[in-house]
């Protein structure tokens, strides 16, 4: 701190600190605290705020347990609250998306880092970047065009004689979340690719060659040499993709069927349609906790530090 003042003087140092303080306090800490605090207060008309009814309670969090409906888990009939179901589906299918992107991206990251010639790398990366620059709304819309009932996918499959009747892809073939998983995988696969690519680039190629010279089959080289080295990249990619998928509001709304509810949609309904900001805050607190839990899980699973993930 003394160093800062010595170099830039009191005035400029104060300005720097003021800017940083504005960011940390006004844009990060206080808003999150406001959300935390308001999530415990009831939704009231403006006149009654601060009145006798305005007391702290867990009622907003309790709303997630309302509206039970009959369903079956592994053949057992159970009554489950609808928002819990949405919540579990979101977590499960986001994990599935994370898994798919990892499977797709890992071989490509290895190819870019170790097989492709270094001279062509900038061109190859640019080719991959082009779809990233097109906005997410349009990428989701592109799949809407493809998956629609009278769309090119059905037409192509019918022309090839693979299917006879058009399929309603958006309603799903396996589950009602098919379309959402397909499109989320497409939208976020590059967020998995780049961290893993960066991690593998720093691996000394001699290590791979040494493993091969010592007779290690290709899969063991990957399992014992490449993947352990790429762990921080994999963890970082998993966190990014999971957060983006679970937090996506755009993709489920554009391509999802009416039967497939995504948790952010539930939050948005509370916030925007019911205008019950307090319950919306409580739900997004729950959502935030899941995200924090996922980050910790990844840190434990891959034995990496937070600073490795948030690069």
């Amino acid at each position: 701190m003394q160093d800062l003042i010595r170099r830039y003087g009191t005035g400029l140092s104060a300005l720097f600190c003021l800017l940083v303080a504005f960011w940390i306090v006004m844009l990060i800490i206080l808003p999150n605290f406001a959300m935390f605090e308001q999530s415990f207060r009831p939704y009231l008309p403006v006149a009654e705020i601060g009145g006798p009814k305005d007391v702290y309670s867990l009622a907003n969090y309790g709303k997630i347990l309302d509206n039970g409906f009959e369903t079956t888990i592994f053949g057992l009939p159970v009554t489950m609250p609808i928002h819990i179901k949405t919540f579990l589906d979101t977590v499960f299918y986001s994990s599935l998306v994370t898994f798919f992107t990892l499977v797709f991206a890992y071989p490509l990251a290895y190819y870019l880092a170790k097989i492709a010639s270094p001279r062509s790398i900038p061109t190859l990366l640019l080719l991959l970047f082009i779809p990233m620059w097109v906005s997410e709304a349009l990428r989701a819309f592109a799949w809407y065009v493809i998956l629609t009932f009278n769309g090119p996918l059905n037409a192509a499959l019918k022309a090839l004689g693979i299917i006879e009747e058009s399929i309603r892809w958006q309603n799903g073939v396996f589950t009602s979340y098919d379309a959402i998983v397909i499109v989320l995988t497409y939208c976020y696969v590059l967020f998995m690719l780049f961290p893993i690519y960066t991690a593998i680039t720093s691996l000394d190629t001699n290590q791979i060659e040494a493993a091969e010279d010592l007779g290690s089959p290709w899969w063991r080289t990957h399992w014992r040499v490449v993947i352990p080295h790429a762990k921080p990249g994999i963890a970082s990619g998993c966190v990014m993709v999971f957060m983006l998928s679970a937090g996506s509001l755009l993709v489920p709304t554009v391509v999802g069927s009416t039967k497939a509810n995504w948790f952010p949609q539930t939050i948005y309904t509370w916030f925007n349609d019911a205008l019950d900001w307090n319950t919306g805050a409580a739900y997004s607190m729950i959502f935030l906790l899941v995200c924090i839990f996922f980050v910790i899980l990844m840190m434990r699973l891959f034995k990496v530090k937070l600073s490795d993930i948030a690069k």
Partner: protein
Amino acid sequence: MSRNRTLLGHFYFALFVLYLLVPLIVMAGAAFNDSKLPTVAPWKGFTWAWFGELWADQTLWGAFLNSILVALAVVALAVPIGTAAAIVLNSISGKFRATLYGFMVAPVLAPGLVIGISTVLFWNQMGHTLGAEDVALFGRGLHLSALGQVSYIAAYVMLLVLARLQSFDPGLEEAALDLGANHGQVLRRILLPHLYPAIAASAAIAFFQSIENFNVTLFTKANETTLTVYVFSQVRSGITPKINALAFLLIVLTLVLALVYEMNRRRRARIEAERQAEARRAEEAMLA
């Protein structure tokens, strides 16, 4: 064996690029189909009509302008904040630095909807506390979208500038101070010129991150809308291929930018290679 694997790698890469590009081509293609729905099959004939409709859509151009304004505001706030944060972080050490760093990068990992909701709740509550609920500043609107976006985009700026600061020699500042420069001159003439590449790159990133942003904007906006949110609402409520026409234009713009960038890069690489060859020749001539 190794040859086969290289071939397999090339093949997989080609397949992957195809997977990324085909949906975009299909979407762009639908812009020219003379059909009321955005689709390429069945093909009902070629038309430019959707571009005309796109041109006539006043709301869309308003949303486009809003996107640019919000992005400019985000750049104007996030770049100074992020740069100041990097300079402050660079001058401290120990536990306090780690804590501060943690707070700064946390919003990058936070989901957009959490940032959006917390921003709205905080400013709304502040308006209530100050007894000024009706003041537009405290209500939902694009100004809150900009503030919400700054909270995480400033972290990108900070990371880029901090990386650039690692290659800065603080001795230069000492020298300038010893030679009688004042503090403003040290900042303006010594430190900032060194940081400009990182500041320019982070400004570009901040601008495009802001244009792209959907989640924060959706939760913080009021009636005025941005381009991304407008496209979303169009897709949700009765779509016409004019969105495809917009997509076509944006994709073409992206391709042109990418091409310019690539040609520029190749030209620079060639000049660099020639310079190295020149240096080698000169060295050989000297040894001979």
